[in-house]
């Protein structure tokens, strides 16, 4: 299973720990350069790639970036826009002009009501965390069926695997459609029983992804499907 880290030694660092001298390298995310030394600012795995030193955090809150595919819930509706909860520190705004429908002023509630889930993309984020969503784009839509499960943001890469390998295996093994949002929400759609299986698989990955338990569970499913 891919652990999401490439190259370098696997060293767990804590905030404030001196990583090494800051010569010829750049400080990436999770690190700062101070007095010509790199200092970790987060708890996580040290990663070095293309002369950039960074820390892959073990636990982190979702920080929206433009271009992220997110699954959001409508938290508030106004006459001309929606506010979405996207699992970030602030609500995201979806103006009616960026909705995929032709929306009249005042008819926003007919398209999306409070609590509805939707697949959207983050159009822009400014430096004070104001963000604008867009639902114009391929595949962006209201989510009418299926289930949404949450996973820690730092495990998204693990869930996807290299080139989406892990995700594809879960999809095939459980016969479900799965969309992984960058904000730690995963949409699953399939038969009730299949959905339950893939939820359990994702939960196993979440809790014991670093052990063999997940691998064993996927293999068992794959074998089972192969026999049918």
């Amino acid at each position, binding site marked *: 299973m891919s652990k999401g880290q490439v190259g370098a030694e696997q060293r*767990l660092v*804590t*905030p*404030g*720990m*001196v990583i090494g001298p800051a010569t010829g390298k750049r400080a990436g995310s*999770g690190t*700062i350069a*101070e007095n010509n030394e790199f*200092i970790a*600012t*987060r*708890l*996580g795995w040290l990663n070095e790639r293309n002369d950039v030193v960074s820390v892959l*955090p*073990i*636990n*982190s*809150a979702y920080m929206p970036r433009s271009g992220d595919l997110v699954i959001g819930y409508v938290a508030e509706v106004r006459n001309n826009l929606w506010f979405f909860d996207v699992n970030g*520190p*602030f*609500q995201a705004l979806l103006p009616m002009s960026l909705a995929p429908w032709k929306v009249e002023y005042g008819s926003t509630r007919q398209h999306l009501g409070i609590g509805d889930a939707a697949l959207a993309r983050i159009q822009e984020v400014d*430096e*004070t*965390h104001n963000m604008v969503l867009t639902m114009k784009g391929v595949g962006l839509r209201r989510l009418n069926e299926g289930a949404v499960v949450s996973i*820690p943001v*730092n*495990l998204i890469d693990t869930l996807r695997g290299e080139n989406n390998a892990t995700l594809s295996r879960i999809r095939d093994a459980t016969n479900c459609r799965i969309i992984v949002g960058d904000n730690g929400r995963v949409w699953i759609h399939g038969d009730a029983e299949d959905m339950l299986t893939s939820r359990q698989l994702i939960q196993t990955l979440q*809790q*014991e*992804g*670093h*052990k063999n338990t997940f691998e064993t569970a996927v293999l068992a499913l794959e074998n089972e499907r192969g026999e049918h």
Partner: protein
Amino acid sequence: MGGYGDVKLLRDDGKRLDGRAIDEMRAVTIEAGVLPAADGSAMVTHGLNVAVAAVYGPMEAHPRKIQRQDRAVIDVRYNMAPFSTGDRIRPGFNRRSREISKVTAEALESVVLVERYPRSKIRVEIEILAAEAGTRCAGITAASVALADAGIPMRDMIVGVASGKIEDTVVLDLDKAEDNYGQADLPVGILPNTGEIAFLQMDGDLSIDEYNLAMEYNFKAAKEIHEVMADALKRRYERGDA
């Protein structure tokens, strides 16, 4: 002699009442990630003190008047449980807990990279379950482990330690009797990697030499506690429930 006249705090063999040497710390154990609902949490036992810290956020700062356009605010609530001492404490805020909340928040603001999260709030709740002198230090240690556990970027962690003076002798890490009947108490928050001081308070009087010795003890203890803190965070990951 001591602040209360004739209370004997040092034994004839030079040790303290609980058998510790004058530069010996009480035992410290730390566990990270003890609260499932919090974004980050930690429990610190320092001698007979028990402090639990929970971190939530970063989240949108409410009410809006507390928002800062260029940085996050850290909202610390230090509270002692009614059952944490022999005499029951009236629940809720009091003058002392307000003060400790404030100094803790200011200390944490100096290490957390607050400029990364404008308009946000990071909520830190410190609950003292059992108190035996030195709760603010145990609380700040717990808070910084909890912040690291929550994945909040920090320049360094803060270690809370205290030294003091009893019977004209500088000692490390006062216990309850020494705090109540001693002459001075010097709690500090130390950044273990840079050696900077994030907060410092002093109760009683120390000469310059005594102060220097007390700080020497504090730095020595901070190093020891920092190892326990780092170990707690690493152990948490090995358990695999990040």
